């Protein structure tokens, strides 16, 4: 799935994303004294951002195209299941990726 965006578009994303991220990082470090703390409502929102965003990002990659046995037994889904198991047991990126790739290729070989 290669992008069809040209260099200008890609660099725009890189620079805009980088500036915004830097602004977030600098925010309170720069303003300390004038603004001392994250507002409580924002803090509550931020607690659930990682779970919600990561789930929304990853779900379409693993959603089966149809509710058939063939679609559910896809190498991607089996690799993903292996990765979830590894993530749950180890909470380690390396083991999770290794288990997921092994699951994917094993399933491609067997199915």
């Amino acid at each position, binding site marked *: *799935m290669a992008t069809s965006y040209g260099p200008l578009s890609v*660099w725009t994303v890189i620079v805009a994303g980088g500036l*915004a991220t830097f602004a977030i990082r600098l925010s309170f470090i720069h303003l300390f004294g004038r603004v001392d703390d994250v507002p409580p409502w924002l803090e*509550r929102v931020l607690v*659930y*951002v*990682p779970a*919600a965003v990561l789930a929304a990002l990853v779900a379409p990659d693993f959603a089966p195209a149809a509710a058939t046995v063939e679609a559910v037994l896809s190498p991607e889904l089996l690799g993903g299941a292996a990765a979830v198991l590894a993530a749950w047991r180890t909470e380690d990126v390396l083991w*999770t990726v290794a288990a997921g790739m092994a699951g994917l290729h094993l399933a491609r070989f067997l199915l």
Partner: protein
Amino acid sequence: MDSRFPPDLRDGVRDALPLLLGIVPFALVAGVAGIEAGLTPLQTVGLSVVVFAGASQLAAIDLLGRDAALGVVVLTVVVINLRMLMYSASIAPYFRDLSARVRAGCAYVLTDQAYALALARYAGDREASTRRPYYYLGVALTLWVVWQAGTVVGVVFGAAVPDGWRLGFAVPLVFLALLVPAVSDAPSLAAAVVAAAVAVIGAGLPFNAGLIVGAVVGVVTGIVVDEAGVASAGEEGGGGSDPAEGH
């Protein structure tokens, strides 16, 4: 030469070393995935240097590879990195006496890991501000250097590996590796499940709106479930304190 190294800086570097086991594969994936998604080597390394925040980089690569709307890509990067607002607020008191330029430098290299280690070290003694940033910088700069080097190696490796290896699949796997620990209680589980369902249902929407709508609805769900749980049960083993709790 060694003696001119502030001891705090050395301590920071040393404490960062065990983290590299987790950082290196992540950085390799960032490099490989950029190439797989059709970014040039320079763009992929540029992303690591300019943004320097792993999960958001992978999200940007993933979305660019799917030709998502550019605004959605940037918005997703921002949302993923919003958590660093809390780190910034929490660590700001320790950087208060530094010059604006040094503070900007400290901010640029702020990461989950550098924040967590530095705060653990600084908490408890708020004086002695002169050498304050050395430990933090020891951790943060070590991670920065390894992150950039890992991205470069990933770029080279990614360009050499045949498509049949399906290395691009490592991107959703890294998301899973980050997602599973983030689901630590009932509200965060509800947030994840609802966000996933909405994102799948909305997958066909233009501009990848399903992602943004799913994330927003998921966060709201998490808060609602949290409120309901607090109202009814009072407490039920709210154990797993996540890094999102900085004060």
